[in-house]
């Protein structure tokens, strides 16, 4: 039987080959320097991935073998797409990828006993909230397109929401692990609806408040939606009460509706979503161009490097924010419906592996943490892809591991590190003699 790490190594090779082929395609399109540069890039990428792999081999020999190659695949795909938009952006992204792997390694190094997180859960929660608040702080906050998403301290600029999501999930997992019994047992039925006990409801209200706070002060509809959805997912998994989810949704909808009618930025986002044709050259431009780009892709796409991003002869954007928000539209445009479905499928496979880890984990905190991290990751992908395909209002969330952006890459590698830590322990326990390997299957 092939060991988990060997399977991981085997899976990394095709990823590097794909990256090489992708760069070759982009170079062929630019037809200026069809040399072995794509091979060099492919080799670099493979070397970095193998280094990370060797580290995993030493530190987490039993961790899930598919997650890292899947993430590497998304990163490789993202690098090719970003290179095709602007090669200097791709250089940044490659550096962030390396930085992400360093933080990935550090997380694994120092959080081997990740239960320690439980002890600091309120500190972590406070950090998470502070991070969310940071963009509104004078001096370091930055406003982007009417939303407060960025922080700039000296030369270092980052989007705190990306890191905040991990803090919030850690806190929720820990809090719910402790209080889930009480939440289930002391729930009361009022008018046929099962309500959670008021005493333990406080922290739930805090999360709801944080989401509403994001809507109003950060004006970040996407992150708000993402956080709250992850919260509801965890609440449901922890308590098994669907009614809690319904109550949460009602609260969120009511709050969102109230603020949508009072906060102009949020209101505009929803109006644009409902009728983008009302102002096709102004506020509706981005979503319409996003959809037009997809219409142009068809089944097989136009090919790497063939799509139009700016209006030829000018610097005016034909697909605004192609390297971040609308990168999925560019993917549909250039590699077609099939290519885009492959990307969605990769996210789904990552979600499947993540939930598998949660199923295998033996203690409540591990289960909830794995669930929460996986859910917040999957929902982030849904929020931005749903945004550019007009399933939900378009908001500025990154497409994990593909979009250009250092915070996103680094934060998501930390998220991946936590998942692999949980996985390593769960699988080690499951494989021990008398463990649960037989009842739960091998992988």
């Amino acid at each position, binding site marked *: 039987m092939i060991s988990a790490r060997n399977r991981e190594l085997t899976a990394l090779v095709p990823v590097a080959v794909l990256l090489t082929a992708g760069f070759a395609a982009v170079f062929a399109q630019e037809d200026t320097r069809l040399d072995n540069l794509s091979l060099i890039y492919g080799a670099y990428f493979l070397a970095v991935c193998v280094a990370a792999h060797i580290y995993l081999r030493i530190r987490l020999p039993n961790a899930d073998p598919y997650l890292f190659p899947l993430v590497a695949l998304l990163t490789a795909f993202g690098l090719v797409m970003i290179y095709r938009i602007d090669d200097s952006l791709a250089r940044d992204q490659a550096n962030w990828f390396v930085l992400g792997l360093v933080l990935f390694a550090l997380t694994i190094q120092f959080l081997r006993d990740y239960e320690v997180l439980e002890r600091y859960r309120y500190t972590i929660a406070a950090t998470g909230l502070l991070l969310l608040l940071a963009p509104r702080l004078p001096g370091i906050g930055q406003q982007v397109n009417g939303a407060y998403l960025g922080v700039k301290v000296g030369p270092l600029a980052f989007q705190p929401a990306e890191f905040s999501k991990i803090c919030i999930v850690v806190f929720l997992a820990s809090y719910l692990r402790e209080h889930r019994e009480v939440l289930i047992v002391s729930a009361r039925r009022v008018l046929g609806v099962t309500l959670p006990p008021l005493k333990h409801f406080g922290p739930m209200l805090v999360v709801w408040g944080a989401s509403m706070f994001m809507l109003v002060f950060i004006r970040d509809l996407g992150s708000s939606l993402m956080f709250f959805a992850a919260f509801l997912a965890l609440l449901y998994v922890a308590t098994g009460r669907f009614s809690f989810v319904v109550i949460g949704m009602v609260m969120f909808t009511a709050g969102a509706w109230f603020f949508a009618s009072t906060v102009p930025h949020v209101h505009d986002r929803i109006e644009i979503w409902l009728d983008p044709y009302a102002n096709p050259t102004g506020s509706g431009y981005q979503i319409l161009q996003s959809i037009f780009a997809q219409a142009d892709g068809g089944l097989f796409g136009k090919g790497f490097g063939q799509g139009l991003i700016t209006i030829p002869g000018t610097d005016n954007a034909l697909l605004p924010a192609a390297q971040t928000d609308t990168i999925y539209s560019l993917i549909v445009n250039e590699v077609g419906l099939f290519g885009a479905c492959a990307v*969605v499928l990769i996210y789904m496979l990552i979600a499947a592996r993540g*939930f598998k880890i949660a199923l295998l984990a033996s203690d409540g905190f591990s*289960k*909830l943490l794995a669930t929460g991290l996986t859910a917040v990751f999957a929902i982030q992908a849904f929020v931005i892809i749903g945004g550019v395909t007009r399933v939900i209002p378009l908001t500025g969330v990154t497409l994990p591991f593909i979009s250009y952006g250092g915070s996103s890459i680094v934060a998501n590698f930390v998220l991946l590190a936590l998942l692999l830590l949980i996985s390593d322990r769960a699988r080690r326990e499951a494989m021990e003699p008398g463990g649960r390997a037989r009842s739960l299957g091998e992988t």
Partner: protein
Amino acid sequence: MNRQIVKLFGFIVVLFAVLVGFTSYWAVFDAEALKEQEANKRPLLEQQQIRRGRILAADGTVIAKSVAKGQGDARRFVRRYPEGSLYGHPIGYSFVREGDSEFEQFHNDQLVGEESEFSSILDELRGGTQEGNDIVTSIDPVAQRTALEDLEAEGFGAVVAIEPSTGAVKVMASNKSFDPNRVPLELKQLNRNVIETPLLNRATQGLYPPGSTFKVVTAAAGLESDVIGPETTIDAPGTLEVEGQPLNNDFSEDFGPIALDTALTNSVNTWFGQLGQQLGNDELFETMEKFGFNSTPPIDLPDDQVYESGVYGEDGPLTARDPVDLARVAIGQERLLATPLQMAMVASAVANGGKLMKPQIWQRVVDPDGRVTDRLDPSEYSQPISAESAAELTTAMEGVVSEGTGTNAAISGVAVAGKTGTAETPSNRACGGGLDENQAWFIGFAPADDPRIAIAATVECTTAFGGDVAAPIFRNVAEAILNGE
């Protein structure tokens, strides 16, 4: 908790399925509609980056070509029309902002080199860029110029010349024409000009009363239905009372009992009026429809720029079931309206032994490497009359040119068959509302014994007769084509 985790995963799968569904909708199912959206400049911008193929006349004269502007990524192509207004119709124009029309619009896919999804993937693998194909038309530049210059000398109108055996369109001229090069600057002014209507292709969109040229159709219906033979006589008095109104011959001349050739040569209204009544709605409409009336002519121009000919009621062309004044329809009056293209099709069908070929402007598609990738395969549209009836009709139409109303169409040394028409169009707003305005027509073909060209020529707003103003245009254009071969 495991049960909930599995359910949660199921929910995530559903969410992702929704994403795939929406992506499929935009990228595939709704893609065509999105490409048509006004706000979507993508298709135009992409086409601008492709070197659109040239459009050539039959002898290789360049009618339309694309020239590169800018360098590198900013390079784009702009359309140029070296011959100016000569081919404004039927070629039309193609520009990114102003859109496209006529031949440029109809043949867009070939001109930009649009191929199936699979072959474009092959192209991509080969690293090639999309290039447009050239299209060679059947238009004869000398005859086209003759037609347009003659029209410009006489007034608004149109000339259509078709090769009867193939349907190849050799001339399609419409006056007032326009210079496609000026469309980016003047499209608004061109559209606003409702008197000269330079953007209207009168050859396919000009609906005119066909007058006596329609007697060819009436005669064809008579011969084909055996209501008459070539020798059958009908008494033709100077005046006939129809629907309470007198139907007169010119100068109310009483011809007595005469057969088809005399009736056609002298364009005797009372003779054809009675023939129409004897035919009845069904016979006359059946023949009309076989000649192409009541349908959009099958030419390679956009459907919305080619009008149906027929008896126009309030809601468009009437059919055999509708009550019409048959005697007046039979002589090309009543509410009958026909395009010059339609009347050229009538002449072409008679010339081709009764077989109507589909009129087509394109001849072949040539790819950027010079290979002919597609060639027009002439096809039959219908057979309105038998070869025998066509021969009998040809004899009668020869009489028109040799001794009747159409002597101005005669070409020395070549037998010509034809028919004149002069429809009175008093108080026509387009003509300035004068009371003596006519629509002058001539349709015919030559040589009569071996027809190589069939032509319809018409002039609006003239005080002259068809034989005086339209027949000479026919002659000049026919000579240009016959001499050129």
